[in-house]
């Protein structure tokens, strides 16, 4: 991992992009990193486009501003490709990961010929199979950890069990499904070429 990586999340209100950014900060924190996890607060409504951010570093982070030139972008909802310029400022040696089942040509056309790596993942199928419901943020969390190589799969999964036990203390029945969603997602990332 580089000394500092910056991540921007695009989602829609209610899909858990903010929660995912905070869980990512948690996981990185637990491996000894310096972290920031923060959403860009606007007039949030269910379904409205929202943005969240992460900085993850090996050294203390002092910058307190939004991220305009991210190393990675996570798109939790592919309908945003029609509404938001998701590759704005995205570094060319970086990567974008999109929750989608759309074909490669469509994705490339919507990403302004982005030169960096493009990945896709079917977070809906994974979530529905593992959790029986559509919560795209859990698979997307696994996908960004895998792509950014912030930590190994083993460390990540071990850490997330602990995080979920804490987060879902009042509904432990969902922990297994969420762990399954993470594992499935890690192995189902497809590179768009």
């Amino acid at each position, binding site marked *: 991992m580089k000394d500092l990586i910056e991540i921007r999340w695009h989602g829609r209100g209610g899909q858990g992009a903010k929660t995912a950014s*905070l869980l990512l*900060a*948690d996981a990185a*924190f637990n491996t000894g990193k*310096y*972290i*920031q*996890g*923060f*959403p860009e*607060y606007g007039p949030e409504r269910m379904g409205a486009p929202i943005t969240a951010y992460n900085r993850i570093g090996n050294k*203390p*982070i*002092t*910058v*307190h*501003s*939004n991220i*305009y030139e991210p190393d990675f972008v996570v798109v939790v909802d592919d309908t945003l490709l029609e509404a938001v310029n998701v590759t704005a400022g995205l570094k060319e040696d970086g990567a974008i990961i999109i929750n989608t089942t759309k074909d490669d040509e469509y994705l490339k056309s919507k990403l302004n010929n982005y030169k960096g790596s493009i990945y896709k993942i079917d977070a809906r199928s994974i979530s529905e199979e593992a959790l029986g419901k559509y919560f795209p943020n859990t698979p997307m969390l696994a996908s960004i950890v895998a792509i950014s190589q912030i930590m190994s799969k083993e460390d990540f999964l071990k850490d997330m069990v602990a995080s979920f036990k804490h987060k879902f203390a009042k509904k432990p029945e969902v922990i297994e499904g969420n762990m399954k969603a993470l594992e499935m997602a890690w192995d189902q990332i497809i590179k768009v070429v």
Partner: protein
Amino acid sequence: MSIRERLSGNEAAAIAMKQINPDVVAAFPITPSTEIPQYFSTFVSNGTVDTEFVAVESEHSAMSACIGAESAGGRAMTATSANGLSLMWEMIYIASSLRLPIVMSLVNRAVSGPLNIHCDHSDAMGVRDSGWIQLFSETNQEAYDNLIMAHQIAEHKDVLLPLMVCQDGFITSHSIENIELIEDDKVKEFVGKYKPEHYLLNDKEPIAVGPLDLQAYLFEHKKQQADAMRNAKKVILEVAEKFEKMTGRKYGFFEEYKLEDADIAIVCMNSTAGTAKATCDKLREQGIKAGVLKVRVFRPFPAEEIAKALSKLKAIAVLDKADSLNGAGGALFEDVTSAMFISKVQIPTINYVYGIGGRDTTVQDLEKVYNDLTQIVKTGDIQNPYRYLGVRGEN
């Protein structure tokens, strides 16, 4: 050993309050400080603290309840933002003039209108002359540390003034970051027990609090408040020294970042100071001698000390995250330049009003400020000292 954690600024403030375990917390929710009383009320419900939590119907009542509790001889705390502080306005002055060391967590937000929930310092600047001590915090860590130090400063017999700890709404209040917490027992020992000399519930000394105070006495009482504010300077440093012994974290009136050999510097408060430090590092790599002076203690204003710290620079930019709308400079700019004038420090100094209503301030923005300073050093020409940063139609 301290506890390595990751918390938002609001969580950090709530945990500080939990460890302080005051007698009374009275608060009314307002964005972006809402989470502080929200988290704190769960500590009350779970029995983690034995505080009396007063869920009041307005901020005016929140401050009134704190005044009542503190007058009675208890330790009272509250949290608010922007319009919540505006609604407290009447009681803010009463708290300080009754010399009640109430501690507030102020999560800075733009005062309406039009309605805006995001960060600027217009709320804090509105009460800068109210007789409250004002500490500013760059990070969640500083918001936490300042709260842990607050009661020792405010309750000191030479001070007895209320104190507010400011942090930037959303920017630090809602951002999860690393933090080092202090163990509960150490905080308890550090904060100590509150032993007021005069209080309403002392049946051996019946007193009246807040009676009529006309021409014969009010002036002397105001002078005493002013003296207390001057005394606070010494106490703030003493408490910081004790705190450093406990944690290793050093606090003064302000932080000097790479100022020692700097030619140009930014003076600012709260989270922007962190962005300014990152900008500084970047410029230093290019051989530009940039520095930052981050004001922590805004009230009392450490005038002589700031003037001295800035005295070797070639040009200075003072950044105000609130516009005084006075046709001249922002509050911090006026205080800094007045301090420089009195100390006969004659250095070109310019003001930027920035970040109003949550307008984001980036490394690129601050690079522009340093570039402007470099130009001023080169040409000796200030042109307009009253500038804006990041507003459309200006730069």
